[in-house]
């Protein structure tokens, strides 16, 4: 049941934005950039006010009854037929894969199959939904691209690569062991502080060795973890969500 083999996903220029709880709490610019990027691609962006979180923190803790409550709320908020666009591979994976596990034996499982089918990670939607093959403008910077773990097997990885590589002046800087996790893992980062911190430090070591100007990703959770670690270790490290790069690249 790979993410790539998901049933055909709906495409429309009218979309629902799921901004994610992290953007809601910490990263307003990334959510704003997501809106502006979608609008520049010709979309009308609707933002359901009652949205909160996809429920993943509780799901990953094994508290399925708590996470199902949150997921049911989210499903109601995003009801209908419109595509749901998420600036996060992780929250998108929760809809596309996680819910299938926790609703397997629930009577309303079909509603979550439908929500998963309608959910797109932002870059995946731009490339594999809207059919973009490049992104306009320029962003003359050296970028380390961190592929977040929840985009494994999804269309996001190739989509990000396609978009970023097409931007004038943007150089993607490869680094060692790119496929290794950043160590965040939600509650894992607080219940396994040593292992999580060591994983993140390794990621920083490998990326910073190549002296990128920014690290980007489809997921702010990884970037928040890495920049928080770098900050504690007094290592200069700048992050941008991929939507922020796409926005900054646009010709004004």
């Amino acid at each position, binding site marked *: 049941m790979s993410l790539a083999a998901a049933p055909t996903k709906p495409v429309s220029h009218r979309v629902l934005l799921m901004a994610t709880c992290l953007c809601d709490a910490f990263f307003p610019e990334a959510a704003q950039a997501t809106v502006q990027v979608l609008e520049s691609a010709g979309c009308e962006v609707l933002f359901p006010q009652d949205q909160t979180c996809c429920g993943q923190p509780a799901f990953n803790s094994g508290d399925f009854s708590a996470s199902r409550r949150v997921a049911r709320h989210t499903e109601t908020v995003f009801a209908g037929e419109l595509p749901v666009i998420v600036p996060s591979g992780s929250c998108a994976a929760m809809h596309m894969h996680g819910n299938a596990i926790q609703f397997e034996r629930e009577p309303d499982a079909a509603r979550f199959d439908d929500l998963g089918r309608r959910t797109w990670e932002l870059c995946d939607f731009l490339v594999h939904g809207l059919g973009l093959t490049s992104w306009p403008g320029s962003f003359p910077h050296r970028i380390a691209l961190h592929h977040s773990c929840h985009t494994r097997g999804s269309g996001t990885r190739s989509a990000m690569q396609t978009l970023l590589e097409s931007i004038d002046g943007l150089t993607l800087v490869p680094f060692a062991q790119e496929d290794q996790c950043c160590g965040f893992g939600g509650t894992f980062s607080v219940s396994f502080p040593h*292992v999580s911190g060591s994983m993140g430090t390794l990621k920083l070591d490998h990326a910073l060795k190549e002296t990128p100007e920014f690290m980007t990703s489809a997921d702010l959770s990884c970037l928040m973890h890495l920049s928080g670690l770098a900050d504690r270790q007094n290592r200069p490290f700048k992050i941008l969500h991929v939507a922020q790069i796409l926005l900054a690249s646009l010709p004004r």
Partner: protein
Amino acid sequence: MSARQPIDQFAASLPGDRRSSVLGSCQAATSKRLTALADDFAHADDLRRLAARIKQHTLDHLDTYLEAATARLEEQGVKVHFASEAEEARSLIHQILAERGAKRIVKAKSMVTEEIHLNDYLIDRGLECLETDLGEFIIQIDGDIPSHIIRPITHKNRREIAQSFEREGLGAYNDDPEVITRRARVHLRDRYMKSQAGITGANFVCADSGRIVLVTNEGNSRFSMAPNPLHIAVVGIEKIIPRDRDLGVFLNLLARSATGQRLTVYTEFLRGPKAPGQPSGPEEMHVVFLDNGRSRILGSDCREILRCIRCGACQNVCPVYRQASGHAYRSTYGGPIGAVLTPLLAGDDFAAFADLPKASSLCGACREVCPVDIPIPDMLLKLRHQAHDAGIRSPGAPPMAPFAELATRPVIWRGAMTLSRAANLVPTQLLPVPALQSWLKLRTLPHWRGGEFRQWMATRKKP
């Protein structure tokens, strides 16, 4: 209960050089695997999925295939036994050996005999039971336990090994791996010739032919059988595959996934005891099929874990295993496979190992490399759920009910988001939230900017 996860504590106490050696060998094995697969197969993922389907099919009809394999083996003169539990297997094997007066036993590397702690059992009953795989031999003389499925001594460096050899009277201190290997070979060769029985595992058992397949790089399983009259193969019931021809899929995947080789140096195909006219080989052959919880797992929602062919690729790629090493998992199987298999095999003792499935960032790397495409992360989640449902507390994990309360009340959620900005005004180190404090020990937190995006969205002029 301790406030920290045991695996995290273990990782934190691991000496730096040990950690580097585990990390380095795992990264090297991961790269070799990738190259070995990509070099020969344009669509390696399709091969993995094919292997998964063959194994899953076998498991879905295991009763039929087990019966077929047993019938073929018996036709070929093999004595077949079934053991439902570890104790039954151990005493059965001891009985076979005792009845034939076999006291000196040589053993090839086998995870299933580790699982049932066969060595200790036989040694306690006065038998000599010698591991002949170099890694396992070193584990045995050190009274240690394997820390990796394929490289049991991946946690040791050569200086430690040289000291062990010196202590055991195998020559003066010398940490040259070639010298160590040569000395072990000389020592073992003599024991092979004096042995009275050989015990092996099995990598595959083909139901259509009753053929047992063993892969090694040292040829020690062959040596364990050739000179002595009795061979006992201990086999988990999940090792069966339907046909000889399926070996084309599995042998191609196993060596590449395990060691990055196209094929191991030795691949042995056994069909029963020595035939008349054959110059050497055991006159008597036994197969002990072991259940030890496997039927129970087959009936659970984690049955896919029984597809495992014990290649260790998930251990190599796992960032948690790399930091913590195999011993952190307190069982025969470490890393992602162990985090799933150990609590499942534990049965009534589930609670004692309920922390293992927590030891993952759910990064999914294990599934990506698994030669039989086991959805390990999904199983980690299911087992976490099982632990939560059983009321087993997990150290360091924040309770989720308050989060669910908040996240299902949008008005309160929005208010909390805006209020959260007040947290910027107090030193975060003072906030009495354990999860937050654990975060802050190693990382800073960005400024709270709750509600800003919503405000922007509500007040901006649309283009």
